[in-house]
């Protein structure tokens, strides 16, 4: 079942001549992790803001969990959607980690006892319970992002939107948060929409949706998307290393498979070609 349906969505910023989002339509199935990829300025963040009704689209219809997004339904819809942004520092309000996680619930009039239970639960989910009395400011980037994630988990959303949520982390912090999100998605049956230009984050997704200059280009599984190799690079996107190496080999005259290969299968393929003279 499609939990998010977007039909003919368009948006233009008032100071711009071109559409930031241009007649975009797609469906997202419940329980899927979908990565929305596109270069900076391609319209992916605009799309995310439209999805949670931060600004109204000029044209098109967004339906979330069976409800059409409008001025009347926006608050009900936001109950179902949690969002984690690029820079957690801009999202912290609490004096302690626990206060911060509780903040989203305070806005939703959750009673105190339930709130405490949910704070504990959410911090456990992201493995940050030991830090509940610490100041968010003194945590590492990866830890901060996990606290931000706990704040979202505490409101029990159906949909989690990550807006370049790993882009400020170092490689280890990024790996950790992606593993946490994967686990939470499976355990809590979340639908995850991650807006990213990180190739590892995109590769973690079930589906990848490519946006270029406001246009919907394609939506498919990562293997099919990555097989486009040089076309992705031309759009300002990254491709996995195995694809880059295939391109380098192909420019040297080697016949390479057209389908996407991850590193393991590329090693296997090269092994069969190895000359044993």
């Amino acid at each position, binding site marked *: 079942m499609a939990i998010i349906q977007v039909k003919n969505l368009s948006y233009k910023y008032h*100071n711009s001549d071109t559409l930031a989002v241009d007649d975009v339509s797609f469906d997202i199935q419940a329980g899927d992790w979908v990565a929305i990829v596109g*270069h*900076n*300025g391609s319209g992916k963040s605009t799309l995310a803001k439209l999805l949670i009704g931060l600004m109204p689209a000029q044209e098109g219809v967004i339906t979330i969990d069976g409800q059409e997004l409008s001025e009347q339904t926006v608050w009900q819809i936001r109950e179902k959607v949690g969002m984690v942004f*690029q*820079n957690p520092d801009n999202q912290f309000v609490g004096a302690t980690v626990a206060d911060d996680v509780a903040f989203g619930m305070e806005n939703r009039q959750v009673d105190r006892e339930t709130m405490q239970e949910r704070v504990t639960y959410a911090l456990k989910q992201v493995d940050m319970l030991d830090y509940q009395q610490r100041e968010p400011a003194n945590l*590492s*980037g990866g830890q901060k992002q996990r606290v931000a994630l706990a704040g979202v988990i505490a409101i029990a959303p159906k949909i989690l939107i990550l807006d*370049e949520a790993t*882009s*400020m982390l*170092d*490689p*280890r*912090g990024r790996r950790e948060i992606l593993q946490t999100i994967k686990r939470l998605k499976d355990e809590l049956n979340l639908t995850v929409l991650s807006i990213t*230009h990180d*190739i590892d984050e995109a590769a973690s997704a079930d589906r990848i949706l490519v946006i270029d200059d406001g246009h919907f280009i394609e939506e498919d599984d990562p293997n099919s998307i990555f097989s486009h190799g040089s076309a992705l*690079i031309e759009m*300002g*996107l*990254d491709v996995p*290393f*195995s694809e*880059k*190496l295939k391109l*380098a*080999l192909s420019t*040297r*005259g*080697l*016949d390479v498979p057209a389908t996407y290969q991850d*590193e393991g299968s590329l*090693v*296997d393929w*090269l*092994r069969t*070609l*190895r*000359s*044993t003279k």
Partner: protein
Amino acid sequence: MATDITFNEVDYWYQAGSPYAVQALRDINLNIKPGSFTAVIGQTGSGKSTLIQHLNALLKPSSGTVTIGDRTIDATTKNKHLKPLRKKVGIVFQFPENQLFEETVLKDIAFGPQNFGVPTDEAMTLAKKMALLVGLDESLLKRSPFDLSGGQMRRVAIAGVLALEPEVLVLDEPTAGLDPRGRLEIMQLVTQLQSEQDLTIVLITHQMDDVANYADHVIVMAHGEMVKQGTPRAIFSDADWLESYQLGLPSATRFANQLIKAGFTFDPMPLTEDELADQLLPQLSKEGHDHG
């Protein structure tokens, strides 16, 4: 005169002398040569950022000395007369777009030199020159810096530091948070500044591919100490050692290690995909690569 930077037995303590004193740098000895491209790698919290703040005396050693050109800085150095030094070594901090504040791009770039006493007219001329040097289109100069894309904002911040006409340009993760094209463009700009403007480059990065592609010298920091320094090839020759500091390899080197297990051989270990492809091709049988 080209600026040479030398650290001699540098220790640095945050909140030195207080009960909360934390040692951030321990016995650092290193030299950064004029015209070189030095990459500083290490985990978050390893002391990289503390280290680079010593490069223009934003921090002074708790003990030991830092010599920058003809100036030697130690714990007793007064903050007076440090301006020439800060002009000589420009630092672009992490997420420098957060420090933009002026009404227009041009004014923002001109702020640095004006702050150092350059008359307005001259500062504006300099700002325009630097804006073009970093690849900002002239049409953007009258715009608010906040209307620009992430990559463009970062160029504005770099131009602001370049407007001080430094000899050494220090960049703390200049590509973090940018998309692949933005990352490539910033790194190309940095190498162009090194080769065409004769700048010495010091780059803090987590991107081992960038270290492999651009640096000629690597400093590895861990727990406030410099645990190794050398050429990228020397540093990346020991995967297990790097792993023990939770640091990775360039993609090509990592992949070459997998291929070694499949029977391939490499000498030297490739650092980039081109080096890898060049060494790989002769090891593949004919039927694979006759066809063009």
